């Protein structure tokens, strides 16, 4: 799980163009939206694309997104349980 979290942080930095950030700057438990990384709705779409592209996960229920994208750790847990690649 910790390895997946670190990999996911790197993928988020690349997908969202956080050029000044390293994986160490992202708190695994911090909220991705609002506080923490302060992501917006376009970033949310980018994360959905990332999960599809890298892990073969298609989010069928948009309401589930709030829970999945609560933090990097919750995202990694969802990926671990649902990945197809």
């Amino acid at each position, binding site marked *: 799980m910790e390895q997946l979290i670190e990999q996911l942080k790197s993928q988020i930095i690349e*997908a*969202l*163009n*956080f*050029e*000044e950030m390293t994986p160490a700057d992202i708190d695994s438990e911090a909220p991705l939206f609002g506080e923490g990384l302060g992501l917006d709705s*376009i*970033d949310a*779409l*980018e994360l959905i*694309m990332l999960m*599809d*592209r890298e892990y073969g996960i298609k989010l069928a229920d948009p309401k589930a997104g709030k829970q999945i994208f609560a933090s990097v750790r919750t995202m990694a847990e969802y990926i671990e349980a649902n990945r197809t690649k």
Partner: protein
Amino acid sequence: MLDGQPIATQEAGDKMLVELYRKYAGDYPKFFKMDTLCRLGWVAAEILLKKQSVDAVILANCSASIKNDTDYLATISEGKYYPSPSLFVYTLPNIVTGEIAIRHHIQGETSFYILEKEEQLEPIVNSTLAAQPELCVMTGWCECSEANKFYAKLNIIWNN
């Protein structure tokens, strides 16, 4: 160049825009999400608007958002269909004027024209100033046709 005086830079291409951002702004992380055209217009405005505020922004170029459009197209190519939302956002050039207006709280006209030649912009701006003589307008050419190839020339003009 600013008012005819060169601005010293160490970097070239897109990295130069990041260097200028760090030198003249540095407090707007959204800059890193922008495409090259938007970074170019935004950072040029950031430098110019330190001297004076304006009521309107009227920019133009001849290639629209072609560089970013091409990047976006690569994400929807056959066999690799992962359309990037963050690239899609910049597939219109007028987002440049929008980003500048948001940053500098400009609530007047914001327009981005696609023109063949730079001199075609002048009558458009003159028309705006004729209709609203009290306006102070930031206007100019903001062009990025491919990676690391760009040009911007911005001016602030008003009626005497």
